[in-house]
């Protein structure tokens, strides 16, 4: 084990700002990006449902 306490872990030997400044945005992005992708998928599904609900005159359904 490298760290004697949680505060030591967060301090990273004085480099805390840099280490967490790098890790946190990456972690945040890896939560935001999948969420945005799922949102896009949901919107696409809604688009398909709209199309099915109101077929145009020339739709063969």
């Amino acid at each position: 084990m490298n760290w004697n306490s949680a505060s030591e872990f967060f301090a990273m030997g004085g480099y805390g700002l840099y280490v967490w400044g790098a890790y946190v945005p990456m972690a945040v992005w890896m939560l935001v990006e999948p969420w945005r992708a799922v949102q896009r998928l949901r919107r696409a599904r809604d688009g398909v449902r709209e199309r099915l609900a109101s077929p145009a005159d020339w739709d063969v359904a």
Partner: protein
Amino acid sequence: MNYAPRFFTFAAPLRFYRLAGAVSPWLYGVAALFALAGLYMGFMVAPVDATQGNSYRIIFIHVPAAWMSMVIYLAMAGWAAVGWALNARMASMLARALAPTGAAYTFLALWTGAFWGKPTWGAWWVWDARLTSELILLFLYLGFMALVEAIDDTRRADQAGALLAVVGAVNVPVIYFSVRWWNTLHQGASISMTAAPKMASTMLTAMLLMTIACWAYAFAVVFVRARAIVLEREAEAEWVRALPEFKEKGMP
């Protein structure tokens, strides 16, 4: 009937849609597992570096992000080229799905590189050959995304994007070589990112675990995005209407 898997099986949007849907949750799981393992290894097991202290631990995300940015660009260009050459829509859709993730990894590689550079070299940005090439790679991604977004006709957009991506991919070695030349010529930039700490085996293991995690994550998120693109483009198709998620309850 021949049940042997055909090479072009998943070129059909329907089959890709189903496969991607089934597989992406598992891929997220794999990514999370490997990330946990890699981060544990990187933070709990790997020792402090003699010269860089704890700041070197940024490499556990910086290097995988940089690798992924390059791999994804090649994959994007490759799939786009396949889509153009074989007139395979699914390949072009996959290329479009890859672009935002690749661009994000590129940006993160630059960002984490800056946060590593500041404590190590004293500056947020150094015009080191690799960082500069990475910046140019970001421009290449942005150019691809801008071009395909700007063209309304999907077929023209796919093909133009493929051409641009392939030209970009071919140019990457030229760009990298010229940037390295430029970097060594101008004596002021004596800083080099290649002066990374000598890798203890625990550091290397942690980095490889994180790379696998990033890879699995990229697959997962790209698959979700590709599914969205498939639905956006193929909304008129019969197979889309026949999907269980669009079946009305109580209707045959």
